[in-house]
């Protein structure tokens, strides 16, 4: 490189300037507390579960945290990269949902790092619906894996991890109960959705999702949905053939916005579901709140566009 | 203060027709010779020109004056250099100017087209009564038709009627080296080494 730089004095000065900036930046590298187990949750709900189980013995970094962030448009930053670089345990969703994680991990190889990839844990394949956290049972299994891993790394506190795990599973009970109750009442109820985010829970509730799958994927990918499908979904709403309209309130694009208008106009109750865990809620509270919203919509026709 | 036609100099004037140094016209431009020439009439006015018989007649007249009627409806960009040059001149004529400035109109033209253009310009200045300021590097095609010459060379100038300026001793002094001026019959030829 110096060979090229010799051509110009201005160039040399500029290059040394860049070097100076780089050095300056080097002085303020992040400090890491070495007494704790470093963990990363690729999404904030996985981070939440790690926190609940590890308590004060872990330090947790969540990557997708902003309920207004869409993983499609996430650009990795250095904070996230350095957290991954120093992590002992990483929990990620996989199935292409957080492909940036595999890149960050490859960029910072670390011996003895454990990665829990939910997609792999459940034997799913790329192309399957990646929104595993809406699938009842997922987090119980993930929590077990986290507790085991923490106990292995820190046997002294193994009992505490196990107790926390059990407490976490208990905290999920109201959600599981709500699902069971709602399923008895509303099995087979027709609903419309925009994106596949909530489909695992919807299926667990026995709801009949009337929106064509290819329409859901087109909206998810920002592609142009077919006119026949737009028209089918429009008819579902305008004729009130569905009892509720479920949309991803984190990414509202023209198609969703238009259908949302239509649902409000036809007084079909709408439910805004979250792709990422909303602030001020635990995973269990969030999941329960979503099912409650469905219950409210189907029972009394009330819309829940935002969780409190 | 410099005055032109008894007026102070300002940007943009209809009284001066201007033919710029030949610019390349995009061969794909959707513009006929006729439309191109039409800009000379009202190109600087806002809006678009409405079809009018009078306007069309004026454009046709300008085209006839430069002998460009034959290709008036062909796309400008696809015409030859000499043909385009005639259109440029017709365009400059349309504003009914008192002075026409031609900046190197003969560059890039073959000998036949160049002498055609000179003939056209000479005819126009007589028929339309305009002053023509003709900038050129090669004086020879113009010698017969010029009234006055401003001969610029090596930072010096010689001004005057043709027979006073285009002489061996005047030009040789101007250039600082020997220049031949040869008379062949009625014609005068300047030979610079």
């Amino acid at each position, binding site marked *: 490189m110096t060979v090229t730089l010799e051509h110009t004095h201005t160039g040399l000065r500029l290059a040394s300037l860049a070097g100076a900036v780089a050095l300056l930046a080097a002085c303020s590298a992040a400090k890491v507390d070495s007494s704790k187990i470093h963990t990363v949750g690729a999404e904030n709900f996985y981070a939440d579960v790690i926190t609940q189980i590890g308590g004060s013995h872990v330090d947790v970094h969540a990557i997708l945290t902003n309920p207004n962030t869409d993983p499609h448009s996430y*650009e990795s930053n250095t904070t996230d990269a350095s957290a991954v670089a120093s992590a002992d345990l990483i929990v990620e969703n996989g199935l292409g949902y957080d492909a940036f994680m595999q890149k960050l991990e490859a960029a910072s190889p670390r011996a003895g790092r454990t990665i829990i990839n939910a997609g792999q844990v459940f034997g799913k394949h790329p192309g399957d619906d990646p929104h595993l956290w809406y699938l009842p049972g997922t987090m119980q299994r993930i929590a077990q894996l986290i507790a085991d891993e923490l106990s292995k790394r820190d046997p002294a506190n193994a009992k505490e991890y196990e107790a926390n795990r059990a407490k976490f599973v208990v905290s999920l009970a109201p959600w599981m109960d709500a699902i069971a109750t709602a399923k008895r009442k509303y099995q087979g109820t027709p609903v419309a959705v925009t994106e596949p985010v909530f489909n695992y829970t919807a299926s667990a509730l026995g709801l009949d999702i009337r929106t064509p799958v290819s329409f859901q994927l087109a909206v998810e990918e920002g592609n142009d949905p077919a006119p026949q499908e737009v028209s089918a979904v*429009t008819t579902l709403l305008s004729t009130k053939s569905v009892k509720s309209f479920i949309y991803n309130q984190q990414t509202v*694009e023209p198609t969703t916005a238009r259908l949302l208008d239509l649902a409000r106009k036809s007084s079909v109750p709408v439910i805004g579901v979250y792709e990422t865990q909303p602030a001020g809620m635990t995973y269990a509270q969030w999941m329960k709140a979503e099912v409650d919203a469905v219950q409210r919509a189907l029972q009394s026709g009330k819309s829940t566009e935002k969780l409190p | 203060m410099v005055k032109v036609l008894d007026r102070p100099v300002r940007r943009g004037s209809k009284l001066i027709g201007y033919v710029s140094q030949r610019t390349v016209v995009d061969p794909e431009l959707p513009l006929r010779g006729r439309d191109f020439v039409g800009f000379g009439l009202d190109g*600087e006015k*806002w809006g678009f020109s409405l079809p009018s018989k009078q306007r069309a007649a004026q454009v046709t007249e300008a085209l006839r004056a430069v002998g460009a009627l034959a290709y008036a409806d062909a796309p400008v960009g696809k015409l030859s250099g000499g043909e385009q040059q005639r259109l440029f001149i017709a365009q400059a004529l349309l504003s009914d100017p008192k002075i026409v400035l031609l900046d190197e109109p003969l560059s890039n033209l073959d000998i036949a087209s160049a002498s055609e253009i000179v003939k056209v310009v000479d005819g126009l200045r007589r028929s339309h009564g305009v002053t023509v300021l003709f900038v050129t590097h090669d004086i020879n095609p113009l010698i017969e038709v010029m009234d006055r010459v401003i001969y610029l060379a090596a930072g010096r100038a010689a001004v005057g009627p043709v027979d006073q300026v285009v002489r061996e001793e005047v030009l040789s002094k101007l250039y600082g080296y020997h220049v031949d001026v040869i008379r062949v019959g009625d014609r005068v030829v300047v030979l610079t080494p």
Partner: protein
Amino acid sequence: MLADPGVVQALLAGVIVAALCGFVGVFVVMRRQSFAGHAITDVGFTGGAGAPLAGLDPLAGLLAFSVIGSIVMARLGDKIRERDVATGVVLTASLGLGALFLFIQTRYVSQPAALLFGSIFAIRSGVLLTTMVVGAACVIALAILYRPLIFSTVNPETAAARGVPVKFISTAFLLIMGVAVAEAAQLVGVLLTTALLIGPASAAITFSRRVPWAILFAVIFGAVQMTLSIFLAYASYTWPPGGKGWPVSFFLGVLALGTFVIARFFSAGDSRRSESNEA
């Protein structure tokens, strides 16, 4: 198919955008500013994404950014070669800002792909009206600029000598184009807008001898291509592999390129003939 209100809405929007783009596109192609025409859509979207962060309406941000972007492009790029770089620099800056807005907040930014492809079959009726008003304003503004704009495109030096404010005209043109194109893009997406802006106009120009005809042809080509694409997209639902509507962007992209190639093929034959006549 025409019983489907979504399709009717799409046809209406498509034809309106095609007409607007055809009109503006003739000037864009004549002035060789296709890059600016495409880039300004991205610039506009960055504004649309940033506006909510400042508590403003996305449409205001879209218009503000396309206006600022066009002015900066015009100021930076006088000569043709500079223009290319000027457009590139403005595009770079706006994509960078877009990355920042995405970082702060993505709800209104939505996915890059959604902005690219748009969703012509799901247009809200209110948006259509705004586009028509803004589009009509752009067409009127261009009609006012018409003569000096063409004059200074064809023959800038003579135009300047005749008192045409060449620099002002080129800035004003970029500005009008920016507003028209950004507005069209938020209705039907970047891809359809760019294809409609450049395709029909460049095909029309290859064999028109007059600007008004070129505009007329461009509008007709655009409207036909758009209508055909919507029909094909509708029909393709039953094509193999079945139950998958092929996107309008695909049909229009291919039709726009195809029409241009065919038009150029014929005009190439045409110009060879006229050359041999001269010889």
